[in-house]
């Protein structure tokens, strides 16, 4: 009997010792509940339900849902337009990301160095971010118009008319042209984020490096970038998510054309699921694209955060 009594005694003591913690957890959970319930209802349930819908052939206009299992996903593997759209998202993530972060870092350093006119420049570069995606798309569509466009107009004015192009009509130039618009739109946010990271670095570190004879390039590579690594990681994750979610600017500028040469997953999903008034309403298949998109955003975020899990340097 004695050992049993001892075990009970330990258990009892453990329960008593952890009771305040459990009570605290319960207390915290109660406070979290009001936020958790709508989150479950509005985010988690729809995500699970989306996967469910993706297993059906369904237009969304009636109750005739035909179960097709994973056929919608299997079909995506052979769908040339889907693969092209995915490729564009990847170009945006990696190519666009490299350009975006490099430019944002460059401008952030210029601004934080207090160069002449930097406050004006800061305002100018962040202004586009305040516009809606549709407004940016319409603006860029006019900039790139072959006849009325600002870009061709400027090229002609400076005698470079041989470089004028139907920018959005060229299969090779159309997506990069859109991406340029996206970078122009978003760069302000990234400049602000990176500049905020740079501004928290104590100036003594740069001063000491300069005293030791370090060049601007060396201070940037050896001091600035390592000290804002965590900020850059956050900026990169933000960009990845945004590049995967691209929709409005592409849809307004080209609707995925010409010849599907500018589709991204978002526009292709919309085109397949909601038919663009022309006859294709494959909500099940469209939702399968949505689920793939969700998985990509989720996995990219997790992988990237793990890869960049370098401890922030304390100073």
């Amino acid at each position: 009997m004695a050992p049993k009594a001892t075990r009970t005694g330990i258990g009892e003591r453990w329960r008593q010792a952890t009771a305040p913690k459990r009570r605290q957890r319960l207390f915290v959970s109660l406070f979290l509940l009001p936020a958790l319930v709508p989150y479950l209802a509005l985010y988690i349930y729809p995500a699970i339900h989306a996967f469910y819908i993706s297993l059906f052939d369904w237009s969304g206009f009636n109750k005739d849902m035909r179960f097709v299992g994973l056929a919608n996903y299997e079909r995506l593997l052979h769908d040339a337009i889907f693969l092209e759209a995915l490729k564009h998202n990847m170009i945006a993530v990696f190519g666009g990301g490299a350009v975006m972060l490099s430019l944002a870092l460059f401008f952030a350093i210029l601004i934080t160095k207090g160069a002449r006119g930097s406050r004006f420049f800061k305002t100018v570069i962040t202004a586009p971010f305040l516009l809606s995606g549709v407004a940016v798309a319409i603006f860029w569509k006019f900039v790139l118009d072959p006849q009325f466009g600002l870009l061709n107009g400027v090229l002609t004015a400076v005698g470079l008319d041989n470089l004028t192009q139907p920018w959005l009509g060229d299969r090779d130039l159309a997506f990069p042209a859109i991406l340029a618009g996206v970078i122009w739109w978003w760069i302000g946010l990234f400049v602000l984020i990176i500049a905020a990271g740079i501004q928290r670095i104590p100036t003594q570190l740069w001063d000491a490096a300069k005293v030791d004879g370090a060049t601007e390039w060396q201070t940037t590579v050896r001091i600035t970038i390592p000290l804002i690594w965590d900020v850059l990681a956050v900026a990169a994750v933000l960009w990845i998510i945004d590049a995967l979610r691209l929709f409005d600017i592409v849809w307004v500028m080209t609707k995925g054309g010409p010849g599907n040469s500018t589709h991204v997953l978002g526009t292709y999903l919309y085109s397949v699921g909601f038919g663009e008034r022309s006859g294709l309403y494959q909500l099940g298949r469209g939702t399968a694209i949505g689920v793939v998109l969700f998985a990509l955003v989720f996995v990219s975020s997790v992988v990237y955060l793990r890869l960049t899990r370098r401890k922030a340097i304390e100073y």
Partner: protein
Amino acid sequence: MSNYKNILPPVIASLLAGLILARCGPSTVEDPTAAETITIQWLDFMSEGEPWQRWQMEVYDEFKKVHPKVKIEFIWAGRDNLTKLQPMIAAGQVPTVISGGPELPYHLGSELWSFDAALETKAWDSDEKWKDTFLDQLWAGETFGGGIVGIPHAPYIRGLFYNKNQFIQLGVNPPKTWDELLATCATIEAEGVDCLGLDNLEPDYNSWWWYWLVQRLIGTEEAFRVLSTAGEPFADSGWLQATQMVEELIDKSYFQDGFSGSGWPAAQMLQMRGDLAMIFTGAWLPGEMLDSTPENFEYDLIRFPAVEGGKGEQTAVPVWANAWFIHKDGPHKEYVVDYFKIATSRKFQQLLVEKYKQPSPLKGMSAPAGLTSLPKILGESKETTLQYLGLLYKHPELFIQVYRPLIDQLFGGYLNASDFLEAMDKARDNYYANQ
């Protein structure tokens, strides 16, 4: 006194009947009881402020006089209204009325209510059968499963739009044949004006040219058969000829400079400025440009040119309409039919044409400015077809995902005529093999 007693009941009955008729017009539907108010949901694909929306509000004012206890709740959802219909149906809130283009019966099909019986009744303001008041050509697009499921309210055709005054100034006549079109274009281009306008970035704007040349050269039914049947070779020489004719327009730079990167409404704006002469587009153009049209600009339209030796009907025009549909599960259909009848009465159609400059779906109505040739073109045409030979509606996936990108490549100069046809053949067969 006894005479009065005999006369009084019929007199009172006649007065009551007169009062009821005066209040309700030709409606056969009784109003809800005093205590009851009915609300009808209406999902419309117009946006607030558009001419059609403003006209519908005037119709609604009249409707309220007839059925004061019936309230219509309009949802001006814009062109993507069907994306709103999907969640509404999922939530069990089926709107009674849905408006949309000719593609709608192909999506909703058996979910739509048939107007067959209602169309046999009298029109609102005449003794004619309601159905007989409409242009006959419009019913083909509203028929599904043997029944009429839509009431056409905005009829369209496609044609070549030009500025009459510009043509006079340039000394050219509207071309009736393909050869005349090429000659006219040569003259116009020599004057420093682009002959044709095309906003290539808008999906399918370019394909109108190719599909209509195919129609002229091969014929609607045969072209549809080959395009929609696996293993059917594009053997007729008309396929190659039609594609080469498109190439010729591109090679001779008859479309405006940089057309491949041009997005709506750039071509229309160039036409307004006098920088280009003709646009092949839908009959919505004059209404769309109403506020931007300069004083010396007078729209007119002509049928797509005939092609000599072509096997298709050379007077054929694509005709379609935006229409109103009733969902079979939608409540209070009888009041909605009254609304449609009021809207398609001569009085409100006259208002539509004169005040809002939109074409009417009724027979014998005048056409609004810019579309005065429309009745003549319709009258002369021996064949009317659905848009894109009907392929868009009957085989939407084939049309959008298989043919559209290849036509884009043809217009972008990435494929020559023979490679294009080979690619079409292969892509179609691959598509069917993967079904």
